[in-house]
């Protein structure tokens, strides 16, 4: 599956510039310590966490994209760090559960 398919199908708003890429699997977490041990490269990372250290963890794991749920929006310095690391950030108005169901219905496992 591609990022563009996820964006179009689940009505995401892009927060920074992004290039289309493959995605594989989903990881849902709001804790940096959990992300670095649990998320896999290429995952869609779904989170409420908008702190800068989320980007530091997402970069280390090499997730394909980050989706902030419940319309959470990171500060400008977080966007700047994500741009530098080349991590596409998106926002969804859905809560975590509703958004997870959308990804499941899209065929993501």
């Amino acid at each position, binding site marked *: 599956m591609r990022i563009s398919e996820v964006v179009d199908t689940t009505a995401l708003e892009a927060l920074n510039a992004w290039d289309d890429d493959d995605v594989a699997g989903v990881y849902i977490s709001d804790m940096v*310590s959990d992300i670095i*041990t649990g998320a*896999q490269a290429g995952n869609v990372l779904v989170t409420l966490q908008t702190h800068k*250290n989320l*980007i530091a963890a997402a970069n*280390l794991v*090499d997730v394909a994209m980050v989706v902030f749920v419940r319309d959470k929006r990171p500060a400008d310095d977080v966007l700047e760090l994500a741009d530098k*690391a*080349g991590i596409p950030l998106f926002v969804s108005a859905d809560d975590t559960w509703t958004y997870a169901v959308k990804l499941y219905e899209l065929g993501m496992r």
Partner: protein
Amino acid sequence: MSTCDHRWSMTDIRSGYLVVEGCYHCGARSSFFSTEPVAPVDEYREGPHFWEYRGSYQAVSFNLVCEKCGQKVDLSDMAGLMLSTCTDPECRVGALAASQPPGTTIYVALCYDSSHASGHCVSQAGITALNEYFNQRLRSGRRRIVVVPCSMCNDLDRCRGIVLADTGLTEL
């Protein structure tokens, strides 16, 4: 010397707290990893130091094991990782960052003795395995992770970076 082309994975993953202490007598700082259900906040005397609690963060500790040959690398000397944003040309980490091609991110492996008074830092075997592990996971050759020991930092207390720890949650 091993001839194995290691394929690392995490093992012995433990959740706990990174507890930071300071000595109110000499200003020294120390930290340790605790798996207690609640982060310890006790004050105590240890030799010339009077340690008091300065804060704690939810964190994980882990070791690395090679899936091919079974070699295990102990990382119990690593307190955490920090994405370096250092631009100080006088600092070896900052100078290293400035010399890297685009797509490279420097992470500093933090040991428990930020003053390095003990002469110890994260082991070289640990640093080598961390570099191999994180780069093996990357999907594109355009990106690269470089992990360095915190002994390369000029001054950890003034070092610029983003520590991978969960701040603000343990007070809930």
